[in-house]
């Protein structure tokens, strides 16, 4: 069917360009409740996605451009589908843009051979491993777990000559730990996603989460506090992947006038008084969950120097917005990489602070950077004393926070984030009681 679609596309004279993606997915899923396995699922999917580009006369007679997309399932009628895409492409009148030209597609580590070969068995192995790890902590119980594995193969061809294939694997694991003390019951929820099963250190995660869960039983009401706040590991990754940098540094947002960031200008709102912020948008990150040899348009993976010492170095842009803004195309953002600091994490943790280890959802306004996010578990830390608390909100602004932060020298990899393991934000507010 792939070749038949290509031939049909090549035969059309009304298209200025086209891109075809053939995506096949195989997945396995396992769901567990306290009594054992609740459900097992096997998923198969295959689809062909066609993007077409047409040149049409604009309202003033100038040449304009329109795009259309159609998805075909195996056996669907090709001509009718392409007619629909072409019709759609002829309806809108945008400034002309191109599609990506052939380029070398870098090799990026994306596949876990074990996940390809024995995905269902790996689900059961992970479930067993989790149960055994949790059993070492009698104060907590695992009451729910979900496991997903996927293997996705994408072949992309376009009318300019790109013909590339990539295979990716992924594994997602979620689980819930419950602890009870009389009538008081508390939970922690964990969701992890990686391309390789071996990057999910389930044993170490259980150790950490079991401690959090039992600490929640002793949690106090949230304090009223303004001062240093520490984020580490997955929570720091959540902070940096919350969408503010991704939005404000995107060519699409620039074209839509949603961002005032300029190349060479500071990305911070005030004066920088912490470590400099240097960020890459990285689709080449080995086993990064948003990494890939090429993106949906066929733009090859890049490691884009996005922010250098607090100043915007580049926008991320698809071919379309790159053409509109006359900037180099970078393709999709990918994973975020942050430059390490120079201070050992131990030094950042030494002075009194508040550490947040779980938010309900860290979701700042992606345009302003403002946030007010509920705290599921935090600690007031003074020396060796860690007093857990639950509730209240962490209040601030992402860009202001990044203006006054110290990054650890130690770095880690968390699926969609590569960078310092620890960040000490000098002044944030906990809205407590």
């Amino acid at each position, binding site marked *: 069917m792939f070749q038949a679609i290509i031939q049909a596309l090549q035969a059309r004279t009304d298209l200025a360009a086209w891109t075809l993606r053939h995506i096949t997915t195989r997945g396995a*899923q396992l769901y567990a*409740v306290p009594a054992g396995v609740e459900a097992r699922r096997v998923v198969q999917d295959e689809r062909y996605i066609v993007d077409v580009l047409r040149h049409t006369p604009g309202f003033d007679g100038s040449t304009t451009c329109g795009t*259309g997309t159609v998805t075909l399932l195996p056996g669907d009628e090709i001509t009718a589908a392409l007619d629909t895409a072409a019709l759609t492409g002829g309806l809108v009148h945008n400034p002309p843009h191109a599609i990506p030209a052939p380029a070398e597609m870098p090799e990026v580590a994306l596949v876990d051979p074990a996940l390809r070969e024995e995905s269902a068995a790996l689900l059961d192995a992970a479930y067993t491993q989790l149960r055994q790890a949790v059993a070492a902590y009698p104060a907590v119980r695992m009451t729910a777990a979900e496991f997903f594995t996927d293997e996705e193969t994408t072949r992309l061809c376009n009318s300019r000559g790109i013909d590339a294939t990539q295979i990716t694997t992924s594994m997602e694991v979620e689980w819930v730990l419950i602890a009870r003390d009389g009538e008081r019951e508390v939970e922690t*929820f964990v969701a992890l996603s990686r391309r390789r099963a071996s990057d999910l250190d389930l044993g170490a995660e259980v150790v950490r989460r079991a401690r959090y869960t039992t600490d929640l039983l002793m949690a106090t009401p949230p304090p009223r506090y303004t001062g240093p706040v520490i984020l580490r590991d997955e929570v720091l990754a959540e902070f940096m992947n919350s969408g503010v940098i991704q939005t404000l540094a995107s060519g699409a947002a620039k*074209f*839509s006038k949603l961002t005032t960031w300029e190349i060479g200008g500071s990305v911070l709102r005030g004066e920088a008084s912490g470590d400099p912020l240097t960020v890459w948008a990285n689709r080449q990150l080995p086993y990064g969950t948003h990494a890939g040899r090429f993106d949906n348009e066929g733009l090859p993976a890049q490691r884009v120097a996005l922010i250098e010492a607090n100043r915007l170095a580049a926008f991320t842009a698809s071919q379309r917005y790159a053409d509109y803004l006359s900037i180099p195309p970078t393709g999709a953002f990918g994973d975020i990489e942050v430059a390490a600091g120079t201070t050992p994490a131990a030094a950042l943790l030494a002075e009194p602070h508040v550490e947040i280890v779980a938010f309900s959802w860290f979701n700042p306004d992606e345009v302003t950077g403002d946030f007010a996010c509920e705290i599921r578990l935090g600690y007031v830390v003074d020396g060796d004393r860690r007093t857990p608390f639950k509730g*209240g*909100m962490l209040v601030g602004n992402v860009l202001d926070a990044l203006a006054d932060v110290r990054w650890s020298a130690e770095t880690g990899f968390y699926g969609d984030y590569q960078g310092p393991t620890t960040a000490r934000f000098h002044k944030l507010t906990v809205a407590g009681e």
Partner: protein
Amino acid sequence: MTDLQLPPGMAALRGELGDIVAGIERRAPYAAVWLSSRQGLTISVDNQEERVDERPPAAGTVLTAFDGVALHERAVGSFDRTPVEKGALGLAHDISVIAGPGIDPGPERRGDFATSMEIPPDTLSTLEKLDRCRDVQRRLRGLDPRIVNARVTYQEISEYAVFRNRVADLGQRVQRVRLMVMAVVSDGNEVRYNWRSKDATGGWEALAYTDGELRQVVDEAIALLTAERIAPGEYTIIAAPIVVGTIVHESFGHGVETDMFLKERARAARYLDKVVGSPLVNIWEDPSYPAAFGSYFFDDEGMLTAPTQIVENGIFRRGITDLYSATMLGIPRSANGRRQDYSRKAYARMSTTAFARGATPVADLFAQVEDGIYLEKWSSGMEDPQGWGIQVTCHFGHEVKHGRVTGRMFAPVGITGYLPDVLASITAVGDDWDMDGGNCGKGHKETVPVSSGGPHLLMKARLG
């Protein structure tokens, strides 16, 4: 009942489903088949560009077999008979029956259903829809010189589904539409934005905007340019209907999904027939609510829809169920077994969740506020069914002094607190009612269309 025109592949396979179910049930005590096809269109028009995009379709067959303890499923991305029959054979072959509770297939039920519409989207050409969006965008973009971009986004989703088990043969078409307007404004230094959305299960008749509504979107966006951060603390608040709907959705919506009872994740399980809020609190879940964005005729496990009262006069009465949790907990079903699409399992999920209308005129609610905040628009929420915490973020809030909105605005405003405290603080319920629709995840995945609403409420909460 209606003359349902299913997509051809789905229609052809429907006639085979009885035999497929019977074939699996030769080995398994319960089997079912669900066919689903979702497709749609998104049109976006702004000052800079226009887009007409297909919404990524999801179409496939779910074959389900119960072995007495667990559900086993094959999800096939096709309605083609050969792979579906192969999947059914494999499913039946792999089943080993274990002694356990039986799944009740429900009463005998047959029927086809379709959303009623005055202006069905498929009676308009794509160009006509694009032109309607262009018209609204033209009206919006000229309202103020500080508008740097004005965007109108139209979405339509057409969902066909067929459910078959040994006693049920059901088909439905649910048509959802939404039209969102967004104004992006700038004073030269800062950029702010505001939006409004209209949605329905229905057609274009639900999507008209008045000039006043567009004006309000722009005025609020401009006011955001000078909005302040609110001082964290406890406030008297008036929550607008769609904010109330979000609070209800995140609390006694997600919090009473009975798959969470089975997973021991829902504190509500210990509060059956107990007080959870003020006697003024009445909360409903109703997938049959006419024209609501989250509504449908039967759920993804073949249960016909009907309203469920979750909280009655401040007392928690019952949760909302999927088939598996209802079976294992031995509780009555409600039509809330929903899947993101054929590739995902069914969970207990909301459809249209709402706080019931009260008796107090809204003006009287404001008159009772000496010093407080009016929260008019939500932007996000997150559930905490075990901890009963609340996180609802509002795009902005208005200062209220002596019963009047002063013009001072705060943004964003987070609502937090312990749920029973918040619900106990409700002292007056407005006599109005409104709702809005959106897409809801269970945690951060499993997205389904929902709606939520209520009246204005007078209450207290911690803001920040």
